[in-house]
């Protein structure tokens, strides 16, 4: 081909381009890292079905997601591992903001000890992380594990050093079961620990636990499943020691009382068979979004994610939402239309 033909072809392409892509709707979102593997799968699959809708998601962290969506208004939807509190909702520049649970996750205790098969109650875990239970043969641990011969070794505590939804869920649960923990440490994405070492990310915590004899730590269920790390069952309100799994985490969402705005922690839910350290991850959307086409696109995507999209959850290690909850959410999603 000659240079002229090239130029002509290029010109033609340039002239056609706006016609071909005029219908493309580009929607942007930002939020937590926990949902990212599932979200990117969703956005990809959805784009295959609807080539004109392009959803971009930045996993910058829940705090950043809330800020960019509600205060800075630089993205069309947000995403968070912990619900926005009343103060954050008050400061928001766009109102109202809807919280819609899209997936479920769990947080599991892991440990490194010569004795395997241990199980824990929430009170024991709270006292360990408060620095009150310091030895593995403490009476509290023995009470959770009758008949197990525990070694007289010191407990080395590992927690997350970076702010994260995992820490939020963990301390939220411990605060619910131990008033002392609630008073001394409180609930947040990064808290001040009286004892222990900080690891960066799930891999940092798991690495420290694996290497330190007598260590205990906590990681996301999905991380433990993917890396085949053994984790311990935790006692729920019904008195059962429940092993975390996609089913028991889903059960927590099914038995928990969920208010109209979905801003609820589902840790320590009532009822049998529920794993007590479970959490939602929410998408933040608003019916007040000025761009109608984008709002419609978000609506359509959410309907798809809550129905067909849920089938991708299990494969990627996320617990799917209970059917009843999905039906309820679909009614609320209609407000975005």
């Amino acid at each position, binding site marked *: 081909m000659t240079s002229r033909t090239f130029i002509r072809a290029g010109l033609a392409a340039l002239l056609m381009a706006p016609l071909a892509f005029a219908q493309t709707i580009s929607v942007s979102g930002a939020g937590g890292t926990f949902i990212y593997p599932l979200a990117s799968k969703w956005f990809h699959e959805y784009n295959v079905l609807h080539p004109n809708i392009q959803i971009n998601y930045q996993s910058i962290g829940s705090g950043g997601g809330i800020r960019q969506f509600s205060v800075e208004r630089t993205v069309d939807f947000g995403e968070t591992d912990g619900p926005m509190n009343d103060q954050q909702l008050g400061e928001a520049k766009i109102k109202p903001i809807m919280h819609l649970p899209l997936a479920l996750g769990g947080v599991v205790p892991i440990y490194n000890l010569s004795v395997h098969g241990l199980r824990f109650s929430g009170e024991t875990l709270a006292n360990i992380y408060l620095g009150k239970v310091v030895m593995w043969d403490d009476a509290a641990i023995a009470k959770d594990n009758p008949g197990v011969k525990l070694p007289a070794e*010191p407990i080395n505590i590992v927690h997350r050093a970076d702010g994260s939804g995992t820490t939020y869920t963990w301390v939220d649960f411990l605060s619910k079961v131990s008033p002392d923990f609630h008073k001394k440490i*409180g609930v947040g994405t990064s808290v001040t620990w009286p004892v222990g*070492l*900080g690891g*960066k990310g799930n891999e*940092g915590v798991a690495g420290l636990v694996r290497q330190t004899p007598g260590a205990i730590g906590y990681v996301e269920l999905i991380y433990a499943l993917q890396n085949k790390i053994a984790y311990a069952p935790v006692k729920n309100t019904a008195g059962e020691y429940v092993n975390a799994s996609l089913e028991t985490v889903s059960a927590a969402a099914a038995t928990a009382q969920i208010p109209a705005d979905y801003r609820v922690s589902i840790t320590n839910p009532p009822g049998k068979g529920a794993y007590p350290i479970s959490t939602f991850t929410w998408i933040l959307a608003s019916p007040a979004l000025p761009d109608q086409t984008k709002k419609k696109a978000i609506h359509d995507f959410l309907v798809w994610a809550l129905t067909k999209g849920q089938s991708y959850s299990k494969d990627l290690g996320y617990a799917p939402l209970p059917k009843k909850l999905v039906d309820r959410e679909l009614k609320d999603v209609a407000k975005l239309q």
Partner: protein
Amino acid sequence: MDLPTTEKPGSRSPGPVAPPKAPTHAMPPLSLSARVPDADAPPPVPEEPRRPLATRFPKRSSGRTADLIFRLATGACAAAVAGLIVVAIVFMVRGSIPAFKDHGLGAILSPEWDPTNQKYGALTFLFGTAYTSLIGMMIALPLGVLTAVALVEILPHSLSKVISLAVELLAAIPSVLLGLWGIFTLVPLVRSFEVSIYKSPLGLKNIPIFSGSPMGVGFLAAGLLLAIMALPFILSVTREVLLQVPVSQREAAYALGATRWQAIYNYILPYSWKGIFGAGLLGLARVLGETMAVTMVIGNTPQIKASLFASGYTLASVIANEFTEAPSILAISALISLGLILLVVSILLNAAARLMLIYLGRGSSSPREAK
């Protein structure tokens, strides 16, 4: 890419704008190979012999324009670099204002860091940065300088070339990889060392810097990792500096009957100490701001402890760890103020080092007399 000699009109790309058929055949083919001279052909001979220097640049006026453009361009680059620093400082000062307003300078320098209760004191992090940097420099500086001496003065040329190459490769390893290596290799080694101290019959664990339970992660592991990171910088610069020592200086020393040690200690090192000082500064700059690798091995516990075995936290680490999930504007501002503190610390250290250099330089910078 060759031009098809016969072209069917139908095969041409149909464009909406179809100009009259251009005489394409008349055009020379636009192909790269046509312009590049044959590789086998002899290099092109200069068209005219070299002119004497005075007439090499005949057009003075065009030279002036080029000179002006060149000056403006270099000036603009220099201004942009200076501007970058100003922008960074302005950003950090502005970002820190809410934190300073909320709890004042005193509270920023308190040891209490408790984001849930909105307490943001920087002292523990400042200590962690200072302590790990000190450990790192105390290891890297002697190691780097002595290795450089060995490379330049003692080892055979071929061996020193291999070692230099290895060290330069070390500088190219991303710090996050070094951090992972730290978690999985260095930390267990440090832990076994700590255990041996802990169990030693001499009661070494009662010495304050060796106290505490052996965890592996902590100041010592972080300091060692920082030493590894600073080493290539210190070593490379020191080696270059030593190579700058004039041969006459060396030969004079040996001619006077100096042994190798005497020559190095009395002549070569004193001759190049300013450059070595600069190498140290470069290493320190690397060490102060290092984030990822340190975060992975320091334990991330905001506390002030003298023990090498205790876990700690550094300014850079806490910013990296908490920025993405910072719960409020105030928390973000507090983290930015930590960045400002880090910047101020490095500026102060740099200034102090320069002052020291000037002060020491006023004395005799000449090599000390051979004893």
